[in-house]
């Protein structure tokens, strides 16, 4: 009886730790991104109807887009590209940022100086402009997009993790470990990182949202994901005329972006308030 009660309690949202909540929500989107397209009834580029901006029907659940393609299928692919590109770029920025941030707490001062200057430099270019510049130079291939978003958000991750690591490195338990003669790797991996997990996770969530916003804006401007590929931003862009008819083709991707970012942000905001 009590076992069941605890089981139930674990299922309740409020019983989850903040980290579990963020991971859970993120996991949901990742699964949707990877598996969603397998359930798409049509190929994303297939024109299935002569009627453009068709309303919902049993043939195409979510209606059609400006060329008469199945919106539901396109939406599933769009989620895949948006979520995967942003996940990879966030992994890149947070990976580099955190590694650098922690490493520079232990390296000679000049390394930190150089890294810090470099990061400040990147930070001093507003992110959308930076993205435009890089895309102008390297084009808009998926790899270029991932790397661009990754580099743009590295300084933020670097600053956060460095501040966290510095605060923890001043703790007496680190002093004791150093005096015991523990190696640098042990100290970083076992003593420092476990204590950064919570705040770091919040930071990762934030950078993911930034990446989604930037990618969507770029795609909306026509400079992000290019046809025939599709992401949420470009979906809105190509169907923007449907706005006049109140078509789902423009409203639905908009809602999906909102649910994605606002959802994660609400979870993060709720955790940081406590």
């Amino acid at each position, binding site marked *: 009886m009590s076992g069941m009660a605890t089981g139930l309690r674990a299922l309740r949202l409020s019983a989850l730790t903040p980290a579990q909540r963020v991971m859970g929500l993120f996991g949901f989107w990742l699964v949707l991104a990877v598996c969603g397209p397998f359930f798409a009834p049509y190929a994303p580029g297939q024109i299935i109807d002569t009627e453009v901006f068709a309303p919902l029907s049993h043939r195409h659940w979510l209606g059609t887009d400006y060329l008469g393609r199945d919106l539901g299928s396109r939406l599933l692919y769009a989620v895949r590209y948006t979520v995967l590109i942003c996940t990879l770029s966030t992994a890149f920025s947070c990976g580099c940022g955190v590694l650098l941030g922690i490493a520079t707490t232990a390296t000679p001062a000049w390394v930190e100086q150089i890294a810090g200057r470099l990061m400040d430099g990147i930070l001093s*270019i507003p992110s959308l402009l930076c993205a435009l510049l890089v895309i102008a130079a390297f084009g808009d291939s998926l790899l270029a997009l991932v790397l661009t978003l990754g580099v743009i958000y590295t300084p933020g991750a670097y600053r956060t993790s460095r501040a966290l690591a510095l605060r923890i490195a001043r703790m007496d338990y680190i002093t004791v470990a150093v005096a015991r003669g523990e190696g640098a790797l042990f100290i970083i991996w076992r003593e420092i990182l476990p204590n950064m997990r919570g705040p770091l996770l919040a930071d990762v969530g934030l950078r993911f949202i930034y990446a989604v916003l930037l990618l969507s804006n770029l795609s909306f401007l026509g400079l992000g994901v290019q046809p025939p590929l599709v992401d949420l931003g470009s979906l809105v862009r190509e169907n923007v005329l449907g706005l006049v008819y109140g078509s789902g083709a423009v409203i639905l991707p908009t809602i999906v972006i*909102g649910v994605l970012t606002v959802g994660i942000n609400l979870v993060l905001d709720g955790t940081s308030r406590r």
Partner: protein
Amino acid sequence: MNARLARLVLRRIGAALCSLLFVVVAIFALTAALPGDVADMLLGQNATPDATQALRHALHLDQPLWLRFMHWCGGMLHGNAGNSLLTGRPVSEMLAPRLYNSLLLAGATTLVAVPLALVLGLACATWRDSVFDRVMTVLTLGIVSVPAFLIATVSVFVFAVQFRVVPALSDIRSIHSVGQFFLTFAMPVATLASITMAQMIRMIRACMIDVFSAPYMEMAVIKGVPPIRIMLHHALPNAIGPVANAIALSLSSLLGGVVVIETIFNYPGLAQLMVDSVMSRDVPIIQACTLLFCMTYLFLTTLADIVALASVPKGRGA
């Protein structure tokens, strides 16, 4: 102004100049890394090698990279940013009217956003956790977590398409009266301001809450100081620095927003020119636009830091 403050300010300006140098190098390096040759691109596929060679010479493309960099920097310093590859007109000449338009838009937005954000952020912090604060939190959180184009499209849909109160596109050439002026600007400024304000309100709220929870604020209450005086005399001097920083940082989102908003409303500003140039790879224009934006941004953040320094006695060395 004393020696200590002067030193700190100079150091801050030095750091900003370092960043500017980084930006200049990065802009040049990235545009120089463009795949393919500009000359090839300009002349198209059926150009003779001779013609390409001549154009390369004319564009100094046959010189080593560093020499081109020096040329470019020298030109920039003299206000000569080269000629557009597309139109062949001097970049500065193309930029000037656009810059004016963009400044108009950004300036109007700042005038609306900053005072409103100050009042609302302060109100949120003062009545923390009240219904008002909660509503504002959800609202601002919603706005900062959706892309700028979304807000713009939704407001076009609502105000221009559904209610037809304002024109959907800003055609500033057709402005002939004050009323028209406001109507034309209303949409872009309102959307841009709401994006910027959301960011500012959140940041201002956070720093005001920080200030309000300081022990000296409790002490002021315990001394029997009236609320108005606590606000003006005790909280304000300590809030100026952080709030200035918050405002400067949110102006970064304003710059990003300008790019999107100008495109959506077809507003003939700098950002729209830049987006068009990125599509057509008009390098000199991209370079000049980015540089202008970055300089604005650096100027504002540096200014905020200096204000923050000068606002505390310790920074002033008083």
